[in-house]
């Protein structure tokens, strides 16, 4: 079974962290990730850009594109895709094709990406 581990935190607080704090958190996670990779258990890892870069595609008769992150608390994060897109427009097109007639998709640029060891 593959498990997806999602990171949540207060963005404003992260941006107020001293540099050493950020470095130590990343260093700790890097050690854990390397351990998992050595065991052949690590898939793709991504750090997302701030929510200010996000757009949201909401399903409706004509999919509705909104500025800003997805922030509905009654709906839960159910999964994610990582897609290579040349521009934001391309990414929005992909979201428009994916969204169908229910739910919402947040388009968030990826800040850093590690492909992992290629899980099978």
């Amino acid at each position, binding site marked *: 079974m593959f498990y997806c581990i999602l990171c949540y935190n207060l963005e404003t607080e992260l941006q107020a962290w001293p540099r050493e704090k950020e470095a130590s958190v990343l260093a700790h996670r890097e050690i854990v990730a390397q351990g998992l990779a050595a065991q052949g258990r690590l898939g793709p890892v991504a750090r997302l850009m701030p929510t*200010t*870069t996000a757009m949201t595609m909401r399903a409706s008769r004509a999919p509705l594109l909104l500025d800003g992150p997805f922030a509905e608390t009654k709906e839960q994060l159910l999964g994610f895709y990582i897609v290579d897109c040349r521009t934001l427009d391309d990414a929005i097109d992909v979201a428009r094709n994916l969204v169908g007639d229910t739910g919402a998709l947040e388009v968030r*640029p990826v800040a850093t990406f590690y492909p992992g060891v290629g899980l099978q």
Partner: protein
Amino acid sequence: MTDSAWIGAAVSAARPQAVAALLRYFRDLDVAEEAFQEACLRALKSWPINGPPRDPAAWLIFVGRNSALDEMRRRSKNDPLVDEELVSDVDDTEAALAERLDTAAYHDDVLRLLFICCQPDLPATQQIALALRIVSGLSVKEIASAFLVTEAAMAQRITRAKRAMADASVAFETPGPVERAQRLTTVAAMIYLLFNEGYSASGGDAHVRLPLCEEAIRLARLLLRLFPGEGEIMGLAALLLLQHARAAARLDESSNIVLLADQDRQLWDQGLIAEALVLVEKAQRLQQSGPYQLQAEIAAVHARAARPEQTDWSAIDQAYSVLERVQPSPVVTLNRAVAVSKVRGPGAALEMLEPLAAPLAAYFYFHGVKGALLKELGRKTEARAAFSQAIALARTPAEAAHIRSNLDQLESMDSEHPQHEEQAHRKERRP
């Protein structure tokens, strides 16, 4: 991270929203600030024991509001009874806090808090100092050192500014769309000034003061998070990120200015650039170009060029020509002239400078650019005169040193026309 360090980060992240909400409750900035201070003291005692609250801003607002009410009752002769329960039950009810608070108005609360710092009667530097003190929560000492003045002088300045602010009336009702847009414009301008104060210091030894730039970026991101659909705020945030991304490359080891063309682009922060480029794209989708967006687009063209010779100068020229229409100013035309010199040569650029001579007579960069264009044309004597004027107007040692190095280069040019002709050949050979 130690307790006090994570509490520090949580408190400083929550501060704008918390102080802004307390200001709405009490309609008095001193009371709001005191209430917030009190809440912070209680957080220092409570959080290490009970763990961090899920929503630190809501916790601080709730505790701050109750402690201020408590304090008012204590002071009031008519009502000596103290309702201890209001504050003593805080730890048990934390989970319900967020729902009990009126959070719907917090976007406008924070905007109001920023807006009251922008009193038009106050000089720009005082508006900035006030915002740093009230919104960012920097200490007077920190602000004083950023502005290179004594702590006492800065304390006096802030007190005076606060007094001016208290006299001005600010509407506490939720603003209408027009008023909200005006407030946003005013606040964006203040954040831009704050960044510029850090980016191109207006005096003192330090040419770049990074903490001011970082604080400006934090405020721009805050504003964008509150108003995610505003193209100009996207543009402002993108512009600041793009300029700041070059910070490490802008000065050399002996603090001399390194021009864009000579910067080591490996030192540019690609993370900040990537974030900014997305914001530029987001803003462009709205198709309502404003001054910040256009300036961000120009900075984005530079950021996309891996090498200076890959810079798309005609795109820059085009963006400046739109900016000239949206926000006509001699400085914009001066900047456009630099782009024109790359596209159509220094002669065409020099012609654009002629009408600017009077309005920009006291502007350091005008004489610097003029000198550089004349130097490129091989007109040494005129170039020397322009550079001399620039030196006289330099505000920091770095600016003066940069012009002096140009004068030195003039001395070593042996004939009257070599550089320009060589450049012309190079242009032809370029694919």
